[in-house]
């Protein structure tokens, strides 16, 4: 097999595997009702997953080496306070990101 053909096979395989994980629940429950237990946790999944995504963004932080995750925790705290105060998503997100870039590029 040529390199190009191999590459295309790999891309197709990875694409199909990715699509499968995303389509699975829709295909599985297209003809049957989801079990009762599932529908009760269904609406609690998004808040839980979103907070887990926040925590996931800290996965590469080295907590026991300088700067001990200070830029990340500080930025998250600022975004949280700013958002509770002004409730302006764009302001919270971009002020927070700017702050973080200054912290990691210039200060820490």
């Amino acid at each position, binding site marked *: 097999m040529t390199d190009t053909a191999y590459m295309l096979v790999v891309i197709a395989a990875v694409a199909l595997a990715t699509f499968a994980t995303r*389509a699975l629940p829709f295909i599985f429950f297209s003809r049957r009702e989801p079990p009762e237990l599932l529908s009760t946790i269904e609406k609690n999944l998004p808040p839980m997953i979103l907070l887990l995504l926040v925590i996931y963004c800290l996965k590469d932080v080295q907590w026991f080496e300088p700067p001990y995750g200070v830029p990340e925790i500080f930025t998250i705290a600022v975004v949280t306070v700013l958002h509770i105060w002004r409730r302006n998503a764009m302001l919270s997100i971009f002020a*927070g990101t700017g702050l*973080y870039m200054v912290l990691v590029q210039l200060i820490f």
Partner: protein
Amino acid sequence: MTHESEKLLFSAFKTTLPVLFGYIPLGMAFGLLLAGAGYHWIYALVMSIFIYTGAGQFIAVALLAAGAQLMEFVTITLLINLRHSFYGLSLLDKFSGVGKVKPYLMFALTDETYALLTTTTVPEGASKARFYFYISVLDHLYWIAGSVLGAVLGSMLRLNLEGLTFVLAALFVVLTLEQYYASRARFPFMAAMGAGVLSLLLFSPDNMLLLSIMIGTLILIMYERTTKGKNSEPLSNDSATREELL
């Protein structure tokens, strides 16, 4: 394009702005990585169009470099992206009745698009299918543009973008707060804190998201079971009181 759909597209664009600022540098990082491994930029384009997953594409490059077997690509991709199955579980209702765009919405369900779709409300009077489709397509285009840009420009660019991808963390923080305001349920946040911190401590960065979602879901199920046990009324009867319990 009619005035109405133009307005809706603009509204979707505003919603996806943080993802634009996150996907461009992240996509560029992927493009750089792929170009660095010696692949033509056209592969960055093809991969970002047809695969469209952040972590999965990064790992695919690593596997390519390691000369992995096809089965390894498939297994590892399935494991890394299994978390998306949980996303779909909470979108069964939202995606019902969106019509012919449904397969695309399923395909384009990344972490960031999921976060936007579950938290943003459809503008009044607008079509849900169309709004979801715009958000999904825009995010997809940002990702494609970023990865091609990274692969083409590569080392030519000398911008210091360090820290810019944290825009996605900030987006998730804001969306978490919006979820907090939108629902009276508090237990999901406690479950996430427990499962998240535990996974951060115990698991490798590559595995922690899927494992933390699984642990968190288990906690939610167990909690639901025990409160159901205490509560004599059937679960499906009154969702309002059940929500108060959580």
